[in-house]
């Protein structure tokens, strides 16, 4: 088992994103640090466009994540609906 992670700046844009990630990934662990959060998860972490859209009430393009992204670990696979980090192949 290996850990993947993603870290975001803390701001108004990322609050609902973080909320959506934690809801969609019950195995994820939130690590709060000054001005940033890091979300750690065993093996896989999935970010879903729909879950974020539900919370913010507008269309969301997953590439918008890049504006507030700090770092990731794991292989990335991104399409229109999901942004997935994993060590599985």
């Amino acid at each position, binding site marked *: 088992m290996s850990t993947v992670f993603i870290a975001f700046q803390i701001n108004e844009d990322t609050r609902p994103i973080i909320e959506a990630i934690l809801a969609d990934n019950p195995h994820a662990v939130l690590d709060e640090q000054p001005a940033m959060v890091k979300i750690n998860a065993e093996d896989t972490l999935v970010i879903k466009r729909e879950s974020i859209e539900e919370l913010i009430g507008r269309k969301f393009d997953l590439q918008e994540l890049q504006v507030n992204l700090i770092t990731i670990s794991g*292989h990335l*696979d991104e399409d229109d609906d999901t942004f997935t980090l994993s060590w599985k192949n």
Partner: protein
Amino acid sequence: MDMKATKKKLGLKEKYAHMTRGLDWETTYQPKEKVFPQATFEGIKVHDWDKWEDPFRLTMDSYWKYQAEKERKLYAVLDAFAQNNGHLGITDARYLSAIKLFLTGISPLEYVAHRGFAAAGRNFPGVGPRVACLMQSIDEVRHAQTQIHALSNYNKFYEGFHAGASHQIERLWYLSVPKSFFDDAFSAGPFEWMIAIGFSFEYVLTNLLFVPFMSGAAYNGDMATVTFGFSAQSDEARHMTLGLECIKFMLEQDPDNLPIVQKWIDKWAWRGIRVLSLVSTMLDYMLPKRVMSWKEAWEIYFEQNGGALFNDLAKYGIKVPECIAQCTIDKEHQSHQLWLTLCTHSHAMGLHTWLPNAEEMDWLSAKYPNTFDKYYRPRFDQLRELADKGERFYANTLPMLCQVCQIPMLFTEPDDPTKICYRESEFQGEKYHTCSDGCKHIFDDEPEKYIQAWLPVHQVYMGNCWPEGTDPTAEGFNPLAKYLEWCHIDLARDGGDYEGSSDQANFAAWRGAATQNT
């Protein structure tokens, strides 16, 4: 009722395919090898460049859109910082030593990274990596510019910010460490550059630099640095992905690539770790308000994260670099050994150092229970004793440097932290000295490269480091003063101990003025 046909937007994958493929052309009047002369000499075999895919699937149009948004956010904060005396919000002006080290040692590297990725993009025959390298090249020049711009706000008030990129990176003895690292990478071929910078530096090590650094800036009230740092860092996930993609691509293209890639990983892991040892002093000594120790950062970002990465790469036959055993030992010692060195040489530096106070030493004891009290506290105590007598100790003779990493030979033997580690090699009848098995190994593998190293100590002794027109035979010639003048350092203001510095006095006076009416 009219039915309007809605034009369906392209999906991300289709859009990426359209905008990163078929963009180039077949050559007609020159053979392809002449157009891409650097594509094969390193021995990396590529059969199908189209197998390269950027997992972010970022295309140029989206790139501009998101980068513009990042810039707008950044400059809004920088304006607010300047308009509201943001420089008075930091915990203590000691903190600025970390920022000076960043501006003089790291920002110029951003610029070299910009040039290096532009060159890599030019030299790869595949369109996928060309687009990704182009984006990274533009990112890197943005990083250099925004860092210099953001920190120019400190230059209005504090010493030591005035000549980093213009003069000091090429001249100052401790800045030759990061400079030589990038020179080494840039003078290699495009594939080695990608392993050196794209993979080892960006993927394996960058988290150790930026994440604790930015958290540290946030903890210490430095809004300007947090903002440019996060803005730069938001590009970093893409750079890391490019580095990882590159290594997977090389390994999947041909089994013959494995030993070449492994050799580069081994070399660049060690080169990068030596450069980052400067960051260890920042976390353990320079931040007035500490975030985490270097050892903790190393364990989270290197041992755990790097461990997961190397587990994953094992399926290609990649092994964990051998130097990791040394790193596990060094993590307990290196920040202390380095800070002791900086403290006894800051009369020849462009930033201030200081001896840790009692409370800071207790923090270090707690974070380093195996080593701090046993080896390092007594040394700081004795330096403190001298300083209290008005005899603050600075070395009066130049140190011996490692031929490869260019750091003074301050590191100790793997099995004995009380003995300096000496390693030497001979090449074409000339002796060369290195600080460690890692650096010796790198030297012995490519001696022709490292015998050319511009070692500041030797250059000073050759007489190459004075301002034009200096006469070293003149009476009262002071080589240190002339060297510092050549480095654009005003010793009375820029270097030495923080205690008694103009930064200390000014910060206290201005902060006082900000909270009182007289």
